[in-house]
């Protein structure tokens, strides 16, 4: 069967046109108000300044090329530019132009860019009207227009096979995003209002794994807040601020994690689509997420909800039976709410795929542990998490992508390629709550300081093959898998998973530096900060602490985050940057 089932997209919409008309009227009113309130004089002045800056930049670039020796010019032509900080302009959302990567890689980059556009257009054209309408209903939909920028910033500086691999992985993620956005808008009461689809949709709580849906091939599982909140914020860090402000105005203190805060805020301002047969809320991963469920329940009072809760001390196998019962009850709940029946064959088929994908993942780790790591950086980490949590072996197309990427990776390894050529100075691993995407951080680390992130804590999850024959064994493995979802390592099960585990991973990956993301609102992690310090000193491990607040850059800006590394590299490591143009630049408004 084709995935996703084309029938789903062909289901009949019943758009409430009067509702659309009223909304368009309101939307038009807001747009008109914005136009009226715009200071056109200032706007014109800014365009003029931008034009002047562009002219100056072009002149400077021309002069730089003129001043180059023939060898340098050839290098520029073949290998591309090396001063990436110049691509940023203060106050701008987009970079001033695309990166020049040399003839071949620029062509590859352009091809991948075009391919991505093609996929997005073909996905949205599966049901274009509700998707377009969604832009007028939900402000977060607009942020998806900058998904290309997200792709571009995450591959900045990459060359050769690495560029191809990262582009392939981004493509897979965005196809998933586009297809699910279309479904969300199609099923939404305010959009396509497709009742037949809505009856088949099972909504999932924040980051709750999708594997359970493999047993319901006729249903559609959608991680509810992933697209309007979580992934959105990684694409556009500024997008969640209205949610945060809304729920803080409601009374939530400002010290809570911005993830559940944003989700609760999205509920408060009714920014989530209305659809679905039922909702699977979850106690995972942390205290904040547990509580955000009550905001969702409050907003969607009529949506039947199952609270999927797993033991916290999950390493204790005696707690496993409780996890199994939770899974069984959850399956029963979905059956009751949708009329669908659990299908073991479909589940096993998908999990066999997932097991194979995990084997490919382990191959990546093996390569990255050598002196010639190949698949490193933020896109890889995002792909790993997405595959582990959301895709989970359900989509057969992803396995093909794994094969392609691993083929490229092994060839690159044989050729001893460098993902960031000439910038492979330090091996690093990332620990604690990661902030690569919001701040494009791993990429910046590599381009500016030659710090190459080999792996991150959240990627090092469950890799044991799942049972694909025996029913009871399969349920037990599913419980084990769910108990080890992303973000659970540092939030559940005690310090051993996160503190002692770091020293174990340091032995395996042999990093020179550990990038310690200090998420200021993550209580589970920050309550171990002193122990990390003490034990790192005892073991002689270098930790660079970088404070951040995920999708709320008002607490800690990207510039402040970079400042921590700059300071450490200069004062402790006594090094100079590989790309000085990336030391100080203003990307506060950038996507």
């Amino acid at each position, binding site marked *: 069967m084709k995935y996703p089932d084309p029938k789903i997209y062909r289901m009949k919409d019943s758009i409430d046109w009067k509702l659309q008309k009223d909304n368009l009227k309101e939307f038009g009113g807001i747009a008109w108000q914005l136009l009226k309130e715009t200071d056109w004089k200032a706007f014109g002045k800014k365009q003029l300044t931008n034009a002047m800056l562009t002219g100056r930049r072009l002149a400077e670039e021309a002069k730089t090329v003129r001043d180059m020796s023939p060898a340098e010019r050839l290098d520029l032509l073949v290998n591309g530019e090396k001063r990436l900080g110049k691509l940023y302009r203060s106050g701008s959302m987009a970079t001033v132009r695309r990166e020049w990567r040399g003839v071949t890689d620029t062509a590859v980059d352009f091809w991948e860019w075009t391919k991505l556009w093609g996929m997005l257009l073909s996905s949205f054209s599966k049901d274009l009207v509700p998707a377009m309408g969604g832009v007028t209903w939900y402000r977060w939909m607009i942020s998806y227009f900058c998904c290309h920028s997200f792709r571009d910033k995450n591959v900045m500086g990459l060359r050769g096979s690495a560029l191809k691999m990262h582009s392939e992985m981004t493509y897979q993620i965005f196809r998933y995003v586009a297809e699910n956005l279309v479904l969300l808008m199609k099923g939404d009461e305010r959009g396509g209002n497709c009742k037949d689809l809505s009856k088949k949709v099972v909504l999932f709580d924040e980051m709750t794994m999708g594997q359970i849906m493999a047993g319901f091939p006729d249903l559609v599982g959608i991680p509810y807040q992933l697209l309007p909140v979580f992934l959105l914020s990684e694409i556009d860090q500024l997008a969640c601020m209205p949610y945060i402000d809304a*729920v803080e105005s*409601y*009374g*939530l*203190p400002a*010290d*809570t*994690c911005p993830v*559940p805060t944003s989700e*609760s805020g999205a509920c408060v301002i009714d920014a989530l689509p209305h659809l679905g047969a039922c909702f699977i*809320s979850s*106690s995972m991963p*942390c*205290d*904040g997420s*547990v*509580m*955000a*469920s*009550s*905001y969702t*329940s*409050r907003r969607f009072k009529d949506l039947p*909800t199952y*609270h999927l*809760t797993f*033991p*916290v*001390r999950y390493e*204790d196998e*005696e*707690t496993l*039976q*409780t996890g199994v*019962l939770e899974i069984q009850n959850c399956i029963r709940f979905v059956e009751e709410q949708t009329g669908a029946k659990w299908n073991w064959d479909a589940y096993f088929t998908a999990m066999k795929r997932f097991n194979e994908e995990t084997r490919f993942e382990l191959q990546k780790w093996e390569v990255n542990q050598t002196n010639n790591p190949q698949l490193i950086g933020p896109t890889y980490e995002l792909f790993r998490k997405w595959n582990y949590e959301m895709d989970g072996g359900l989509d057969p197309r992803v396995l093909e992508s794994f094969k392609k990427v691993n083929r490229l990776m092994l060839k690159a390894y044989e050729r001893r390629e460098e993902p960031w050529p000439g910038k492979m100075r330090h091996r690093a691993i990332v620990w604690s709550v990661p902030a690569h995407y919001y701040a494009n951080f791993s990429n910046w680390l590599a381009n500016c300081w030659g710090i190459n992130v080999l792996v991150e804590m959240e990627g090092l999850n469950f890799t044991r093959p799942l049972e694909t024959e025996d029913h009871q064994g399969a349920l037990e493995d599913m419980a084990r898998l769910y108990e080890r979802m992303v973000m659970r390592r540092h*939030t*559940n099960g*005690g*310090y051993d998973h996160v503190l002692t585990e770091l020293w174990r991973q340091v032995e395996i990956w042999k990093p020179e530096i550990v990038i310690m993301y*200090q998420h*200021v*609102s993550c*209580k*589970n992690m*920050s*309550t*171990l*900060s*002193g*122990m990390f*310090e003490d034990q790192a000193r005892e073991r002689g491990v270098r930790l660079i602490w970088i404070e951040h607040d995920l999708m709320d850059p008002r607490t800690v800006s990207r510039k402040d985050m970079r400042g921590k590394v700059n300071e450490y590299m200069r004062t402790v490591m006594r090094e100079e940057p590989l790309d000085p143009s990336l030391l100080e630049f203003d990307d506060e408004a950038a996507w």
Partner: protein
Amino acid sequence: MKDLKYLIEFENLLENADNELVQQAQAEGKLAVGYTCYHMPEVLLNVPGCFSVRLRAPRTGSIDIATYYMSNYTCEYARSLLERAIEGGYQFLDAFAGVDACGAMNRCSEHFELLHVNTKPNFFVTHCDIPYKVVDYTVEHDVRQMRKRFLDVLTEKYGVDTSDAALLAAVEEHNEVCRILTEIGDFRRLDNPPLTGYEYHILNLVSYCCPKYLILPKLRETLEEIKTRVPDQKPWYRARVEIVGSEIDDPSLTKLVEEAGAFVVADRYCYGSTPGREPIELREGEDVLTQICRHYMEHSECARYISNEKIQQRRDTADRLAREYRADGIIYEQMKFCDFWAFERPLAGHILAEEYGWPVLSIDRPYNARSSGQLRTRFQAFVEALEIKRIQKKGGNAE
């Protein structure tokens, strides 16, 4: 009103975790088991030969060392306990019955182990796994956890009897404490009650922090004293309030509220009497431990319980108590940096105000609230608002 005979003594007992009665009980060979959370059934810690001490960090000053270990955006209660532990303030404990219920307290108890804050050879820390909802199999899970992670370890390390007979004895003693405190607490329903909210808070707290068998005679005597205590001619308060929310082990917070003119008539918070002072009704034919665990799970008002019926229970209990104790309004409070209550407070506060019709003051507060001028001002303003509402209800006439 005439001072209660034991009030000053009780206040003094709350000045230190290892107070005189704790020392006396240990001198008599009893084991002191510390705990912090309602999810750990208090009664299990009071099997013969042991006594429970609900941990507090009275007179907390600087928490700099704990802040180094646990950072500054985390629960001050957890940090204060760790600071006190590092200072050696819990060296007297023989065990720490911890639960993995909230992140901050779990980490605090982990630091007890990692930093070896107690050097007694048999000292141990438990981390019981606590479910998020109350259904048959989660009760069974809770029972297994309590048996394996706490009771069995207690037997193994100290040879303590944790049989059904031992549990029954503990329940009996516990129920007497509950009956006395409930009877005392019921006086708060009166228009002109013979005790203040502050006094009740002290009585309730000593029952958590002292060995039951040593505090019981004094509580019995205090009950008799209150029965015959003559209140002032006119009620001293300007408004009646219920306090709802997260952990409060600091009676000076109640004092602060009452100094602003509000009589605290009901206490639905952790370390309060709801939950905590409900007798455990046992029936024959079912395992005692299961019944105890179910009692605690069903009575818990912890925001951690995620299921819809428990969320509703929390709102209904706050409403019921406010009605039964004839409160004029509700103070919904939350310890700063507590994630569970940070999310619960605004939502429940709005619902209690908008759907249940209660005037609600919603606050977050430090662990030690006594010196907070901001809180004092907010309490005073709330009392004024309640008075104005009362006047408006009476058609604009003050009397």
